[in-house]
């Protein structure tokens, strides 16, 4: 027998894109000749080139310019850049009106983003089961069997979008947040418009929490084992340990709930976080420096935030957090992928409670909008975007032009966690089996739990290629199919 003949045949099965994710995600399952999965990877095309593109631009353009990064979450980039550039103009201590307007914008964004994800993207999986036929497991199926839920999802999304429009000024390239403040307040008419529906929105958000709790109660074993793996968790928390989506300091916990670091000023993030480059992925892999590449990766987003905070400063959401934390092993940290949905709905409830509190605050009608102080040359802005912690870091020169930009987006922070989720689920459900659509969907369910944003923000008709490749470990392409090419 020659060396060639005894060589183990290993095939790579590539599925691209992951349906209902932006179309640039690609899952690679490396299987041996017996159909056993040896490795699983999720590939993502990242925002390559953008950081170089904004170099040389005047810093005051940043809060608007960064919105071109992504048509999915422009508000997150808008606010992160605004928070960063606040420092450049010495305006980091915002006026009450400015800070509360930005918080309202952010909570509106979180509310609509979480509602869209839950009602229209995840609910088909949760309501009909992961193995349900594709023809049923979609939003049309939800409309036909649960029309009230579908309508609620649309109305909640619309409500949040209208808040964004009222606070950012417009839907495309909003200008609401500027370095050192904002450029408009909220009128009495706008306030009353939003208050007229607020109680209905709170009721629907409570209903969504009950819905996801019901799913967990019906399938406790599945929910606790699907994509479950220990991880570290990173998020902002307020100085008193409260959940705060807009501002705070960095806290990291390990999988058992032990503090890795706490109340770290995010301006010093480079002392605590590094990014690893791997040859097979364009997206970097951040890790906690003190734990190293192998053990320092972490989760961000709703699950990490609920795990990390000591309490939620709105009563309905806090009551739900306390119930949620009973799911944690030892009452400390939840390490289960599907608990992202539950945590996301708790944040939805918190967001709408927070919106109600802000709408009733007369500071939103204030006229003191901008602060200026000592100018600086370097700045960092962090925000808890719907999908997780978002870092913006800039340096400028004497001409106020950007000389350096470093962005770590939420989905990058969850990069290793999503890869672990794919690998864990693949090992649980695909090893040794024929790769069928329902089985593949288990992988997609795991990825969707993280609500990744893989958008390159270009969506023009015919611009979204679909590639399916079958290649050997040596790189030989056994089969390749394209769609929309």
């Amino acid at each position, binding site marked *: 027998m020659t060396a060639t003949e005894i060589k183990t045949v290993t095939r790579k099965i590539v599925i691209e894109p992951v349906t209902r994710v932006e179309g640039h995600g690609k899952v690679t399952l490396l299987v041996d000749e017996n159909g056993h999965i040896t490795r699983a990877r999720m590939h993502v095309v990242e925002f390559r080139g953008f950081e170089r593109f904004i170099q040389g631009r005047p810093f005051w353009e940043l809060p608007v310019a960064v919105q071109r990064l992504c048509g*999915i979450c422009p508000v997150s980039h808008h606010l992160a850049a605004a928070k960063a550039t606040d420092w450049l103009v010495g305006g980091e201590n915002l006026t009450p009106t400015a800070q509360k307007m930005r918080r309202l914008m952010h909570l509106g964004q979180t509310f609509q983003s979480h509602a869209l994800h839950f009602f229209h993207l995840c609910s088909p999986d949760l309501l009909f089961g992961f193995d349900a036929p594709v023809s049923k497991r979609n939003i049309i199926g939800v409309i036909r069997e649960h029309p009230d839920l579908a309508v609620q999802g649309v109305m909640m999304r619309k409500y949040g979008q209208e808040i964004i429009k009222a606070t950012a000024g417009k839907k495309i390239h909003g200008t609401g947040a500027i370095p050192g403040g904002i450029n408009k307040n909220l009128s009495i008419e706008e306030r009353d418009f939003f208050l007229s529906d607020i109680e209905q929105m709170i009721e629907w958000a409570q209903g969504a929490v009950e819905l996801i709790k019901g799913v967990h109660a019906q399938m406790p074993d599945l929910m606790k084992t699907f994509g479950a793996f220990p991880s570290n968790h990173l998020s902002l928390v307020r100085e008193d340990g409260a959940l705060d989506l807009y501002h705070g300091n960095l806290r990291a916990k390990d999988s058992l709930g032990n503090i890795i670091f706490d109340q770290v000023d995010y301006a010093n993030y480079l002392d605590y976080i590094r990014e690893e480059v791997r040859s097979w992925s364009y997206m970097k892999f951040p890790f906690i420096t003190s734990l190293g590449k192998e053990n320092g990766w972490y989760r961000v987003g709703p699950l990490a935030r609920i795990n990390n905070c000591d309490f939620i400063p709105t009563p309905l959401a806090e009551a739900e957090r306390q119930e949620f934390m009973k799911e944690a092993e030892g009452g400390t940290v939840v390490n289960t992928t599907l608990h992202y949905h539950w945590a996301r709905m708790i944040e939805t409830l918190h967001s709408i409670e927070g919106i109600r509190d802000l709408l009733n605050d007369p500071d939103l009608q204030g006229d003191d909008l901008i602060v200026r102080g000592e100018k600086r040359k370097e700045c960092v802005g962090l925000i808890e975007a719907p999908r997780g912690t978002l870092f913006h870091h800039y340096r400028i020169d004497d001409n106020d032009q950007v000389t350096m930009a470093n962005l770590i987006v939420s989905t990058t922070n969850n990069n290793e966690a999503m890869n672990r989720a794919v690998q864990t689920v693949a090992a649980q459900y695909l090893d040794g089996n024929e790769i069928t659509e329902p089985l593949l969907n288990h992988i997609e369910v795991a990825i969707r739990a993280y609500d990744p944003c893989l*958008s390159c923000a270009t969506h023009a008709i015919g611009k979204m290629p679909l590639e399916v490749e079958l290649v050997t470990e040596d790189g030989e392409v056994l089969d390749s199919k394209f769609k929309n090419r």
Partner: protein
Amino acid sequence: MKILILGYGNPGRQDDGLGPALIKALEYKGVDAGDGVNNVTLDSDYQLNIEYALDLAKNDVVIFVDASVTAGEPFEFTEIGPSEEVSFTTHSMSAESLLGLTSDLMETPLKAYQLAIRGYSFEFEEGLTAEARNNLTDAVNFIIIFISKPTD
């Protein structure tokens, strides 16, 4: 007739901004002033999503305006219908899928068209290419004539 013209795309990605650019041009020309044959509403966004079902349901006719990398020059204008295909990704959806959602959710009869304006470059940069600007001019002139007539 109540007509909604909805342009979508990312102006920060060159010709991907053709949809919003057409809406801006129509606003400049005052076509939503309410003095024409039809009652015209203009709107633009980065992408389509579920909440637009509520806006679509308030109209008799909707015209979706998007950039296209495959349409014939200068543009293609076609009537489209609802689709049950779940073509939307995590955070956006196609015009046909949005029509399907509107139809199922709101049970509203709606006539719909898609204006696909040919674009050429989609990099991180503000502003349309010269070729796309020419196509936009033709598309604007076409739409102004289209909405100046009864649509049924």
